């Protein structure tokens, strides 16, 4: 079923830890007898922007949740930078530089934008359990937090609580928070979901800038975002890889066309 487009299955025996920063081997996830993901081999090339797409129920979100360690795989192996992370938890892989975002914008609504980013910066700062010190202890982080806010265009909102930010700005704040961890791999779950047209373009540009010097894996419905942003696209269907390659390759693949058209007809 899996048709290779870009010369050799990326996650197959040919994939190495040198070229690929994140590799899923033979990934399977079974929910109460239903296999949402079946023997998926996936490799994310270092420095690329890689998209997981597919019709509804194709298993892309499950696959994504496996790679981000939000879900534990039923079978298979996940290698991050040469290290087997199959058994690790979200917090542990985050510390190693594999950081995810969430579909529903995941901010801390009662904290200000600056505090949101500072919480993330605290994760490596080492004062996170210092309950006896004043906030001056984390003042050294403010400059970096403001820099990150500036990067995503939130410089003027630093003292606004996240709950009061617009939807698009919440997503931007979330990206700033994720970037605070200086992740080597950034995993974005439907970064443009629920966004109006006017917000999609800025967020696409933001992801493009954020991707400089790192690897990005994203799940996305909006194909125009995928086409402008991504180097490699993996198409999933029925929990299996249907096709993989560049946007041109994938969009001309007859299987993919059928899958998407079929999805529309149903």
């Amino acid at each position, binding site marked *: 079923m899996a048709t290779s487009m870009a010369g050799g299955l990326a996650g197959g025996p040919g994939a190495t830890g040198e070229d690929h920063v994140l590799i899923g081997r033979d990934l399977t996830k079974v929910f109460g007898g239903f296999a949402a993901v079946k023997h998926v081999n996936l490799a994310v090339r270092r420095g690329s922007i890689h998209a997981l797409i597919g019709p509804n129920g194709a298993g892309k979100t499950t696959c994504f949740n496996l790679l981000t360690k939000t879900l534990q795989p039923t079978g298979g192996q996940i290698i991050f930078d040469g290290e087997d992370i199959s058994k690790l938890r979200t917090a542990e892989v*985050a510390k190693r530089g594999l950081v995810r975002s969430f579909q529903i914008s995941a*901010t*801390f609504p009662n904290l200000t934008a600056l505090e949101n980013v500072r919480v*993330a910066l605290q994760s490596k700062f080492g004062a996170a359990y210092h*309950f*006896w010190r004043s*906030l001056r202890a984390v003042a050294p982080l403010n400059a970096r937090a403001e820099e990150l806010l500036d990067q995503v265009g939130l410089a003027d909102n630093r003292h606004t609580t*996240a709950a009061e*930010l617009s939807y698009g700005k919440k997503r931007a704040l979330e990206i700033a928070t994720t970037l605070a961890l200086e992740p080597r791999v950034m995993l974005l779950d439907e970064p443009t979901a629920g966004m109006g047209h006017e917000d999609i373009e800025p967020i696409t540009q933001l992801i493009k800038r954020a991707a400089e010097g790192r690897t990005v894996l994203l799940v996305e419905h909006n194909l125009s975002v995928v086409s402008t942003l991504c180097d490699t696209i993996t198409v999933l269907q029925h929990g299996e890889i249907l096709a993989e390659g560049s946007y041109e390759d994938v969009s001309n693949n007859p299987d993919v066309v059928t899958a998407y058209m079929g999805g529309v007809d149903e």
Partner: protein
Amino acid sequence: MKPAHLALILGFAAALAAPFYFYPVLLMTILCFVVFACSFNLLLGYTGLLCFGHAMFFGTAAYMTGLALKTTGISVELAIAFGALVAGLLGLLVGYLAIRRQGIQFAMITLAFSQLVFFFLLQSEFTGGEDGMQSIPRTPLFGLVNVDDSFNYYYVILALTILAVAAYYRIVNSPYGEVLKAVRDNQQRVESLGFSPERVKLVAFVLSATMAGMAGGMKATVYQFATLTDASWQVSGEVIIMTLLGGLGTLSGPLFGAGIIIWLNDELAGFGEWALILQGAILLAVIIFFRRGFVGELSALFRWVARKRRGDGGTPPPVQEGATATGPG
């Protein structure tokens, strides 16, 4: 001078003058419950954990402080510290076992533990069972200053309360407090940023238990006895009401909540059984009209006035969901 500083100074002056005008024991009771409510707000207001058995720490510490005073004769402040320490250890044990659960499950587990502790205290020899632990000596402060007189002891309790409230304020406004509020707002996200939310919450639970223990120890020295009531589920419920009444997740909410409830209990005591009904009616009124608690509503009003003065937006402040809600985003 900032209004907040002015309020602080006025409050302090009032606290110093209060025993000249009011019954010191009533004032001390209020202060003990202020500390207790602060400890509870740290959990519910700033961590999003509803502990339904907080009296187990209050009651255990009351007995432990009493036991230390009766058997060793150490000075009163050390006995209170001992009670708080034991409560903290109990918090570590209970927290370790309960912290992985959330919401109603966490509330039920803590309730179960507190009933277990209640039963243990009821059956134990040293607690005096149903009779409680009577005639706890109030040993001299630092082994030097005689505090037998309630008027004098009020100032000791006031100092301890200020210490506890300052600690509470510091915890909430510390690097850790920031992470704590983040856990309350969105635990999953905190985990994805490389923290262990369980560990963050466990620390909060132990801190809260220790502070609740301090309150219990203080109360045992004020009344010079410890009873099963201190560890009962009714007291666990009372502290929830105090915290909600004052304003969840507000810094000064517990002060007002504890003050209002204890004062009401005292004022309504003459009404006998009717006291509970009146209390219930007042609570209902608060739930309906002051959803953010007294302090929450007041500060929302101030913000609204300030915004109106600046001239942007005449809309009344939006009612925020409880601290456990993750908000619209």
